[in-house]
């Protein structure tokens, strides 16, 4: 029961993007298409889960003085693995995500979870936590990417949704669209939360 909570909390209640506002750079940068969003989400989830597992395993071995460099090392290793794997097996995706794959290293979510959760909890829990956070992160990018791709191209996952006569709102897939979309989504979320609070 409790283990499931470790997983689900990351998806809604402690959603790393919308609630905790972490790891925003890749969220905004790669959410121009749902495909990119899934790729980025998957990569980040992989790194999150692996680094959480390893750090949880090594937590007694790592002296607290050098824990941050150690975490960074572990994370950077996994990021490099993902980077190479993607380049080898899905080159187009690797190309469109660009430098944001190596930049997963400095994604605050991952270091944050390592420091706040994995270094204090068991392996299984840490894995679930990492998975939950990763999925939450992925869902958040997908939501934003869906909106942006829908408005900015008229498609979702390259499947045309709006008729071809739709004149796409290109601004949605440009940087301003990213900022405004996430701003409005966060506002919407806080409206919902306020409603929930006033009900409770």
């Amino acid at each position, binding site marked *: 029961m409790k283990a499931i909570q470790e997983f689900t909390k990351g998806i809604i209640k402690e959603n790393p993007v919308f609630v905790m*506002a*972490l790891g*925003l*750079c*890749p969220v*905004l*940068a790669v959410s121009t298409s749902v495909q990119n969003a899934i790729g980025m989400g998957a990569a980040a989830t992989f790194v999150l889960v692996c680094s959480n597992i390893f750090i949880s395993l090594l937590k007694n071995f790592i002296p607290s003085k050098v824990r*941050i*460099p150690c975490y*960074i*090392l572990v994370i*950077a*290793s996994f*990021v*490099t693995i993902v*980077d*190479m794997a993607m380049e080898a097996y899905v080159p187009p995706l690797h190309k469109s995500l660009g*430098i944001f794959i*190596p*930049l997963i*290293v*400095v*994604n*605050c979510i991952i*270091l944050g979870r390592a420091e706040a959760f994995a270094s204090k909890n068991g392996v299984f829990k840490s894995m679930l936590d990492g998975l939950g956070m990763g999925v939450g992160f992925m869902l958040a990018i997908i939501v934003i990417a869906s909106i942006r791709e829908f408005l900015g191209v008229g498609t979702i996952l390259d499947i045309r949704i709006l008729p071809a006569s739709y004149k796409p709102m290109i*601004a949605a897939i*440009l*940087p*301003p*669209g*990213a*900022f*405004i979309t*996430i*701003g*409005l989504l*966060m*506002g*919407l979320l*806080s*409206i919902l939360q*306020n409603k929930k609070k006033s009900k409770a």
Partner: protein
Amino acid sequence: MDFSTLFIIIIGSIFVNNFVIHRFLGLCPYIGVSKKMDSAFGMGMAVIFVMTMASTITWLIYTFFLNKATSIFGIDLTFLRTIAFILSIAVLVQFVEMVIKKAAPELYKALGIYLPLITTNCAVLGVSLLNINENYNFIESIVNGAAAGVGFTLVLVLMAGIRERLEYSKVPKSMKGMPISFIVAGCMALAFLGFSGMKF
């Protein structure tokens, strides 16, 4: 030395492809440290400094240790790029912190609190990676690092100015704080589109 190239790099990194609002790098401090103009300025100065230093050091590391063609080892270690960069940036920040603390306590008072935040500022790692991706030479890398820092500071201070003013306005409750900051960022990004396609 080709000055026009440098000039283009400077204008490009400050205005045309501003790190924050076009490349989505360094968003966390952009949103987090932009409540007050003074702290925004302090953060900006620290970032300019670290970015310039990081560009220098990572370029040297890449050229002399990692890249096969120019390396002193003569082997291809580019796969260690991410790890090497992030570690050297972390060490650099630590080192800078120590030096400033000893040599210029006044400066430390002003910048000290921002320095640790910079390690996880993806703009620093981002500029290092971009320098490599763009095949910049040594001078170009340094200039690009400094210009990117200046661009970052510019938008950070502008953002802080607007947010200080927003303190006095009647932003709807649900939009207060982060959501409205993103909307402002969106407005800035729209305005900065005016620089796009700039050619000299």
